[in-house]
């Protein structure tokens, strides 16, 4: 990591004064900036389409895509299971293809389209995959579920009617420690047979 070029001094007193009042859980509207910058780190302004809406965001060059989504756009449906490209819990669609958002920098999303689990349901209607996941009890603890959904969505984008083996191969980068694998595969096959797309 490069040395900070200049340091913005914030005293402990000043910091506490500014933050000590409202300690509620944030469930409100998305915010772009939640962390107080303490050093000048390289930033880039990017234009990115998130769940169909184009937006311009200033991102620190060191942010991963999942960091941007979770911490700065309040899209916490995408989970971090390992932060090093091993588990798939952070899977999102980048231009329609599944990627590990922990292993992509936010700046790389410039000019591209990102779809997260929050963007799956359309006009209040669940995606057939979401309904199938519910019906087949695919999620147990649910922590890998967003990633499984997005990977399955990407798979069905490429191959609308996969076989069970194709589903397993396509989703093998998405781990589930509850090992709900049987039900995930059943659910994806059921959704693909529904003829929804």
């Amino acid at each position, binding site marked *: 990591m490069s040395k900070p070029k200049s340091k913005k001094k914030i005293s402990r007193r000043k910091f506490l004064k500014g933050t000590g009042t409202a*300690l509620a859980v944030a469930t409100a509207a998305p915010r772009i900036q939640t962390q107080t910058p303490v050093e000048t780190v390289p930033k880039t302004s990017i234009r990115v389409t998130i769940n169909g809406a184009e937006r311009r965001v200033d991102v620190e060059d060191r942010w991963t895509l999942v960091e941007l989504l979770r911490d700065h756009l309040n899209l916490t449906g995408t989970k971090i299971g390992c932060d*090093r490209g091993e588990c798939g819990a952070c899977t999102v669609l980048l231009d329609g293809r599944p990627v590990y958002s922990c292993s992509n920098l936010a700046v790389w999303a410039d000019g591209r389209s990102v779809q997260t689990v929050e963007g799956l349901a359309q006009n209040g209607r669940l995606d057939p995959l979401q309904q199938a996941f519910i019906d087949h*009890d695919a999620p147990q603890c649910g*922590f890998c579920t967003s990633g499984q959904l997005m990977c399955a969505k990407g798979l069905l984008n490429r191959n609308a009617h996969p076989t069970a083996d194709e589903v397993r191969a396509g989703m093998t980068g998405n781990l589930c420690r509850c090992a709900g*694998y049987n039900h995930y595969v059943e659910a994806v096959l059921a959704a693909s047979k529904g003829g929804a797309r």
Partner: protein
Amino acid sequence: MNVVGKPQPRIDALERVTGKATYTNDIHLDGMLYARILRSPHPHARIRRIDVSKALALPGVKTVLTNENCQIVFGAGGIAGGQQYNDEIKKITKQRRYVFNNPVRFVGEPVAAVAALNRHVAEEALRLIQVDYEELPFVLEPEDALKQDAVKIWPEGNLSLNQRNEAQPMTTRRGDVQEGFQASDLVFEDHYSTAFVHNAQMEPRSCVAHWEGDKLTLYTPTQGISNCRQDVARDLGMPQDKVQIICQYMGGGFGNKNQNQDADLITAMLAKQAGAPVKLEYTRKDDFIGVHGRWPTVQYYKVGVTRDGMLKAIQLRGYSGMGGYRKNTGAIGGIDIYQCPHIESVIYPVYTNKTVSGNFRGPEYPQGYYGIESMMDDVAYKMKMDPVDFILKNMTRKSRDEVPYTNYSLEECIRRGAETFEWKKRWRPQPGSDPGPVKRGAGVSFMAFRSALGRSNAVIRLDGRGMYTVFVGVTDIGAGAKTTMAIIAAEALGVPRSKIDVVWGDTDRCPYSVGESGSRTTIQTGYAVIQAAEALKRQISEKGLPVGDSVLVGSASPNPTLEGKVRAAFAAHFVEVEVDTELGHVRVTKYLAVHDSGRIMNPLTARSQIKGGALMAIGMALHEDLIYDRRNGQPLTAGFYGDRIITHRDAPEIEVIFIESDDGYGPYGAKSIGESSKVPAVAAVANAIFNAIGRRMKDLPITRDKILGALA
């Protein structure tokens, strides 16, 4: 039954598929700091000096904790004699674990913690903390640790002390094994060993702490909010009502998130010292080496049988590697599923300089069952008996040959399973007899798992709209506790499930519950829900339905007991594998799990649990292993990739049959489910591999290189 027993989706399924379910790391508080932990890079070392001045000088760093400014006992992290930490034990134990210890006893032990304005600054600060270590000799294997010249990890030696501070193994005896061996026609001896495997739940540990005056609120993934509150209050010296634990959704745990963890105490202390809310996030590696996994074991068996295949004596001498601290008993379970007049079990829980061992789905059983069930399978083969016949002849019929079970279906599980699986067709009377380089074989294993009754609480409120709100202190580890409570409430109240709301996961709103451990939630809290529903119905019959703003409340705190009986869930697993003898690759080609878990509250979610436990066990049988470098004591496979948990591609279909029973206890006869399917599964896979290749695999995991080595 109107609601119980009908397959139904979870009440929170929508939240889980839309990303709206709030897990601990999704909590954001305004002004929140981010925390990171510096961990020991050495397996055993004394800290001469820690210099945190450079870290504190980094702009954005708010506070740093080390053992110099934070001396808090982590009670649940180092229990005495395998017993839960209480005030009595806290007073007497000589082997006390602090949040930050000196010396450090394993790679990954916390040395310092930092809270800073963002996670990048916190990570930078860790690099600026200078620790002067005096490296000490280390020992990794439990049997080595008991040798005379082994380095002492604790001043009292490496055999963990019991509750009376005595260095004694855990010993159980029934009858007299020497007499049993004399009465035997044949005596067999062998040994088996098992690896450290990590819980590896998908959600890494995180915690958010904030203080309002002297009240602490902790958002933390815990399997038991009530126990977590009790532990945090005890360790921080606070009254329980000043601690609030909130856990709405959690990403699995499998025992890794029982009670409280040092992460909770560290986050609370960082927040207190910084005067701001703090979020601590573990990396995946932190989680692997900084919490706990299943204890590795070495098991020496001696078994005596008569010529007609009746067991006369079982002797076990076992060693369990507890890591630097003893977080659980280190027991090795399984012998008790055999009916045998003479039994002796002597288990040594031993300190090592590996990461700490603790609860993981059926804590002492999957590894113990692998040992005893492999041993018995081998005895059956050597006596030219079909293993199924050997089991039917020798399996438990009364608990420890004495106390009757509330119901007994083990024989039905085995017979039904053998028939459905077509055991006679799939099992090879001559192991390894398939011609080809790819050989098939079948294995069997069975189990009995405690389903004890116990205390819990529930409150149900009926309002003027006709909605019933059930308050229960459960969290939802993934097993579906909330849904199960709603199903039981609907059944007991005689209303549709849509009329039930469940409030859970918050100690300020919910009464005590035992938590999601020991497969007890449905039995204990489910029973309390029925009792609370009865109390509410009595109120309704006395006062009529509430109207307008009025409410009626029913509550119950039952503590049912069993007199002279034992409750157990039973199961038998049948597995067929295919082993490529040129590549050493094992593929599970058929898997059948037959379970009596009493009455099934929700077949949809119950099936998920049985399948998940069996699949997880296939991973334990075939690849999971936290491997250490013997030269330097470094863990080499801490992470999903290195540890190789099972993936979509490896996962076979698991067929599940429930043999439902109602023994008259628990909620509508429900017995335990969650841990049970993992218990016999590892042994069944190992036995199938033996049947396929004719070589007994005695060391977990059964990796390709070991198979090729055995065949060479």
